[in-house]
């Protein structure tokens, strides 16, 4: 056997170096330690699979199929979650309702993210009069009770938008209305967070340095300051998804949200009101799902808050 006496010389420097952890690797290490956040992530994943995977078992037509002959049946082998007041299968409806609820949560979050970040960033960066005007406007939106505003807007716009067809599926136009009104009533919190971040970040020397290399203002705002304030924005956006789902459930429960036959977890509760003690399955399953998803998302938000906090000393 030949010996390789000079093997050690052949080590490439790369093999001697440990590659440094990136910001996201560090965050992931901290996130992993947060048991509730991991529980939340898994349960959210399960719910997503439930809602979107379940569509392969039940068709939407089946979920919306009315058969008054079998109305208000308790859970059985044929209808595991029972049937509702007009004889629709609740299991199939929670599957399709989950899709809508998740989509409403996500898109409403995007709407509020867009408005909130834009207003917060402009307000915090420019300060002065622009800041005053935008913040007074933000406060004006904030002091109107959100639920009240939601109900009025839902009532006002609810019936004015025709049904829409996306990817071969028809949604009640009210879905778009709900997303829009949740988005435009929820952004003030985000705007304030972003503004606060910008107020302190813009005083940093590296922003002055960016100015001194001739970087235009627009780039300074969105390429230099915004990435620095990502952590609180991500956390707020995550929690925003949960609150959008709750809000949707709330207005749908009051009958002003998404119109049947399109199912959401919220509007499935609507009819359940009169049967609280006689037909528990009407409210139990959608209610459980709402609770579970909101809880999961909040745990994830909590975990993200800890994981993305640059001041966190935990490894």
């Amino acid at each position, binding site marked *: 056997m030949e010996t390789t006496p000079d093997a050690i010389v052949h080590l490439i420097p790369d093999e001697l170096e440990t590659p*440094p952890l*990136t*910001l996201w690797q560090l965050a992931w290490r901290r996130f992993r330690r947060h048991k509730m956040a991991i529980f939340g992530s898994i349960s959210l994943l399960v719910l997503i699979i439930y809602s979107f995977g379940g569509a392969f078992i039940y068709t939407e037509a089946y979920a919306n199929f009315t058969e008054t002959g079998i109305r208000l049946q308790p859970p059985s082998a044929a209808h595991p979650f029972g049937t509702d007041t007009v004889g629709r299968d609740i299991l199939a409806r929670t599957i399709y309702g989950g899709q809508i609820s998740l989509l409403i949560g996500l898109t409403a979050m995007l709407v509020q993210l867009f408005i909130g970040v834009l207003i917060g960033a402009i307000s915090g960066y420019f300060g*002065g009069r622009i800041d005053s005007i935008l913040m007074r406007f933000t406060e004006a939106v904030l002091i109107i009770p959100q639920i009240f505003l939601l109900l009025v807007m839902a009532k006002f716009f609810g019936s004015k938008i025709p049904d829409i067809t996306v990817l071969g599926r028809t949604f009640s136009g009210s879905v778009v209305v709900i997303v829009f009104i949740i988005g435009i009533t929820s952004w003030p919190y985000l705007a304030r967070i972003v503004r606060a971040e910008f107020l302190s970040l813009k005083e*940093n*020397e*590296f922003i*002055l*340095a*960016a*100015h*001194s*290399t*001739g*970087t*235009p203002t627009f*780039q300074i705002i969105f*390429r*230099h300051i915004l*990435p*620095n304030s*990502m952590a609180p924005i991500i956390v707020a956006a995550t929690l925003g998804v949960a609150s959008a789902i709750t809000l949707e459930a709330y207005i749908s429960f009051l009958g002003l949200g998404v119109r049947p036959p399109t199912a959401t977890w919220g509007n499935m509760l609507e009819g359940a009101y009169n049967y609280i003690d006689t037909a528990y399955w009407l409210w139990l399953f959608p209610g459980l799902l709402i609770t579970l998803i909101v809880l999961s998302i909040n745990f994830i938000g909590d975990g993200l808050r800890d994981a993305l906090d640059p001041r966190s000393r935990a490894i």
Partner: protein
Amino acid sequence: MDKILQINNLRTIFNTPEGIVHAVNGVSFHISEGETLAVVGESGCGKTVTMLSILGLIPIPPGEIVSGSAYYHNKDLLQLPEEELERIRGREIAMIFQDPMTSLNPVLTIGRQLTEPLTLHLGFDQQKAIQRAVEMLTFVGIPDAEKRLDAYPHQFSGGMRQRVMIAMALGCAPSIAIADEPTTALDVTIQAQIIELVIRLREELGMAILWITHDLGVVAGLAERVIVMYSGLILEEADVYNLYENPCHPYTTALLGALPRVDYTRHQRLDSIPGAPPNLLIEPKHCPFAPRCQFVMDICREQMPQLELIGSDHQIACWVDIHTGKSR
């Protein structure tokens, strides 16, 4: 040599709740092509504010440039609209900041921060910009530059970051580099390396350097001409040999006297200038150094001395001839 930047009677104030802070009170100087000009003075004497005013980087409000002009190639920088200034900042006049620890954006890679001015000012495409960034990093002495482009600022040491800052400032080959105390945050050996680097850059790239510092030791090894500032005013301006051989303003002599010396005995106390720097809330109406000056005369407390030539390339603003102790 051609003057490439001419500052005339620059005044900058800050409106604060306590009153008006008179940060810069009528400063005039010039810098010629390829020249190294040092601006010295203690903290708060207006060195940095002067430079930031020239580049339009003073926050307005509370800042306000009351008067003056700053001519760069026949264009008054103080009158230029923001968009035109943006084209000059970083392209024609670059700045190197004091604290490399806070002057780099912590969430952007070095590569992105280096290539941004290149794509912005020179219109380089990504590939060309990266190539140039690698060149610059290698030039300022960062080994393995290509790999380091993907690194974040926290993965560099202080000296390395200052090198990155310099690479960033010089990437577009500006004609003037303003270095705002670039070595203060570094330890002495790294200071020496950075100064050496800047000297090499000046020789190879031929840019003018405006070096702001309070370290007279650094000035001696680097500058050709020196401006001594105090309370937002220029008190003495001379070429570097004259200033050290024959300082003529009492403040300059006091500053030089306060330098620690190798031949001091162990228990000797360091000399210092008695008193404190002036309160900038009060607009200077007379010589601002008068309260601390050992040669002070009555006129010093009544009238403001103007900069006057006392030799070739040597100006002071003082009523006294320190060699005789009498009025000039």
